[in-house]
């Protein structure tokens, strides 16, 4: 039997990258898998995607998915600037970027905040495990206060909540998820790639080697036991919108459904669970995150959404054609233009 294929006629296999070199069981590999599935399911064209990353375990992963795309494993904490440049050069490219809690929360905090401020349209995934893996187990800035790790003792500093930092910086799409919740990760990725603005996904992704004790909020056992999704999430693609009222609402009352309309006409349908969170409300988003941090509640799902501001390319008033595709005539003014400038400077 031939393998199942998507609308481009490609099998899921063709969205894979090279074999992972991370530790077996690493949460990051599950996220890579969801990225592969997302691209396959949506039938994305790999040549139109770039994969960007900084340095760290998480930043190695772009080699392990979408082998047909260009990828750039850049510098520690500096992926946002490289992505900014690449997307200015070619605004037709879609960009999936992978970072970690060290790469974003410590060395890259400045670039993280500023790329959001510029509203560079890309998917910014933070594979957050609270620990430095490649350098063997130091605390990161997202580690739990009071946590004990074998090599470095007790962490006395409060964690930085990267989702909260994203909301404060003006990010228009902020989600938190758990690499052990494949379905939710997949759905949030499908929503994020549709968002023409910076989308931040803070995904708790356990480090099986250095930070997987059940007492750590970044561990598998903790995540499995404590994850509390804010909603059940579903994506209604634009082609389904006409029929969306007919799509089974199931056991829910209409008042328990939030349909977040996205820029491309699709909807994120949120079915209410045990809380009143509305991701379209910035104050509620910050409340959820602050409470989660204070009370160590592992809330996941779409935290905040708003209609995106103009992107960086919009505010730059760029020509339609990608800058990288301009031809020689667009790149060099005429000899008459130079003469004009020169004459203006002469006696």
């Amino acid at each position, binding site marked *: 039997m031939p393998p199942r294929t998507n609308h481009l006629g490609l099998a899921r296999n063709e969205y894979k990258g*090279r074999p992972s*070199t991370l530790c077996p069981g690493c949460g990051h590999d599950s996220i890579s898998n969801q990225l592969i599935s997302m691209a396959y399911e949506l039938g994305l*064209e790999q*040549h*139109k995607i*770039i994969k*960007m990353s900084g340095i760290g375990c998480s930043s190695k992963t*772009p*080699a392990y998915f979408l*082998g*047909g*795309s*260009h*990828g*750039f*494993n*850049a*510098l520690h904490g*500096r992926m*946002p*600037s*490289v*992505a*900014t*440049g*690449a*997307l*200015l*050069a*070619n605004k*037709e*490219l879609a960009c999936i970027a992978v970072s970690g809690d060290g790469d974003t929360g410590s060395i890259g905090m*400045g*670039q993280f905040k*500023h790329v959001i401020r*510029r509203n560079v349209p890309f998917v910014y995934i933070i594979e957050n495990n609270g620990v430095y893996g490649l350098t063997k187990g130091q605390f990161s800035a997202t580690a739990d206060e009071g946590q004990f790790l074998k090599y470095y003792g007790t962490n006395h500093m409060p964690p930085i909540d990267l989702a909260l930092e994203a909301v404060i910086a003006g990010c228009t799409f902020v989600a938190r998820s758990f690499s052990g919740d494949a379905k939710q990760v997949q759905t949030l990725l499908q929503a994020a790639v549709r968002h023409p603005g910076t989308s931040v996904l803070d995904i708790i992704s356990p480090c099986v080697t250095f930070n997987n004790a059940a007492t750590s909020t970044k561990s598998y056992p903790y995540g499995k036991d404590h994850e509390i999704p804010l909603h059940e999430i579903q994506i209604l693609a634009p082609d389904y919108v006409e029929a969306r009222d007919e799509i089974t609402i199931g056991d829910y009352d209409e008042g328990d459904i939030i349909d977040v309309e996205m820029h491309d006409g699709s909807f994120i349908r949120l079915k209410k669970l045990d809380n009143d969170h509305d991701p379209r409300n910035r104050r509620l988003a910050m409340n959820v995150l602050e409470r989660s941090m204070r009370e160590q509640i592992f809330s996941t799902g779409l935290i905040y959404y708003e209609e995106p501001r103009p992107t*960086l*390319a919009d505010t*730059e*008033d*760029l*020509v*339609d054609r*990608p*800058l*990288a*595709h*301009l031809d*020689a005539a*667009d*790149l*060099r*003014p005429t000899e008459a*233009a*130079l003469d004009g*400038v*020169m004459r203006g*400077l*002469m*006696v």
Partner: protein
Amino acid sequence: MAINQQTQPKLDTREPVINDFAFSVATKNGSGSQTSNNVLVMSLFQMGIPVNGKNLFPSNIKGLPTWYTIRASKDGYTARKALTEIVVAYNDSTATEDVANLPPGGVCITTDKIAKVIKQREDISYYEIPVAKLMRQTEVPSAFRKLVENMTYVGAVAQLFDIPLDLIYEVLLANFKGKAKPALMNHDVVKLAYDWTADNIVKSDPYRFEHMDGTQGKIMMTGNDAGALGAVFGGVNVVSWYPITPSTSFVDGIIGFRHLRQTENKENTIAIVQAEDELAAAGIVVGAGWAGARSLTSTSGPGISLMAEFAGLAYFAEIPAVFWNITRMGPSTGLPTRTSQGDLLFTHFLGHGDSRQLCLMPGNLKEAFEFGWKSFDISEALQSPVFVISDLDLGMNNWLSDPFDYPDQPVNRGKVLDAQSLQAFIDEHGKWGRYMDVDGDGIPHRTLPGTEHRFAGYFTRGTGHDEMAVYSERSDDWVENMTRLRLKMDTARAMLPQPIIDNGSDADIGIITFGTNEDAIREARDWLANDGIKTNYLRIRALPLASSVSDFIMAHRSVFVIENNFDGQLTQLIRLEHSENISHVRSLALGDGLPMTPDWIYDSLKEQEG
């Protein structure tokens, strides 16, 4: 008006000195003197007199002493001279020293208030301008008075040394972009001082300006503007920077010339992003270069320091991007507004690991323009970052130049494979790998993101890749890669701008330099020639060094390397590349924060050769 009693030395009987003397204008920073000085320089330029203005300014917005030197030279020498014949002493805190620095027979133009304190020398002329009194007579609104006060010395200078008043008005009008109101306001003050000087001061010096035709068909511009214009003609399309003196005006220049590249609908073909720091600026241009843009950043020493990691990454990942280093003294604060050539070694070796960055060193305005566009062709052809090393003196001061030549070579995007040529490459070579060298010049072929071919994608990393851009920690893969990069650098030596060589005489003394010392050296060589000391000359314009540098060194008995830094960095670099004995190469290096003078070069060389 009462006749002002001024003590004057007896009427001057010296031969007139026409169009061949220098001014130093001493004011306080932030007092509006920049406009006054600019008006004087542009007026002389309009009179056809070869002129150069250099701003020797402090790192300060308001209050600290600042000097501006203006040199007029009928013979076209435009270097800064060690001594100026005339000082405009408008800063009470430096006036005593400013007067002390004048040569005998010099001229001090000052305010009546300052004159009371500093009149100590008998061998110079003092011209005292009653600034406060004149300002009371103007109709300038009080809010602007302080800002136009310095126009009083423009008026006095115009009257004393013969600059036509109507010409000054034209220059003022141009300075204010055609707006008559501010031009008139300034001109009123100029005229007031001009008339007062005519009525009250008896000229007792031999200095005078006269119309000549030394600037016909020439332009005046700053090096930063020239480089920016060059970049615009070179197809720059992504610019990112972080403000830093003295490079900020480079990006201001691009913003000013951006319209030359706008579409009919006023859409931009140049994106300009002010980044959060120089790290991000470097990241943006590296990302843009990787994705196929012609990207540029402009910075100075501290920024270059922050860009070091990206520079190394771009070198090893072989990504084109252009970095302008408008060199100043460093590090940190203190002398950031003083010129220097002290970043040569740092810039050339920027990055960790074995890297030798491609550097272009413009020596004048024309080359700032030329390297402005050519840097992109070089960077894309060699798939490597290019550093253009300019300095504060060239970047921020107005230089006289012939108009720029339109680029004489077509835009060269280098070895970029689109979907079709990638397929042809694969058909010919069986496969394509990002770092395969099929041409034997060390330069591989690259694809850009967005190329619609299933084998176009590749993964970029700094180190640890084989020729297929696949992760590899094998020693032999890396040695092979480094060997190819060395070959690429040797290819570069011949592709880069070659040295300017003046081997005209049978001299056995050679002078080597780079960058903006050329004017001072030219003048010093003329003085030396007058003393019977003949010299040959070579100006290096790019790194890695061209092979002709060796030939020049070996062809001379004695070689002096002249540079504006303290450690003789170019000398060190030359020694590094020569295994043979070159003990006849000596360093004449002075890093004192000021543009080089012919006086120092002449004295130092004579002393060494003595």
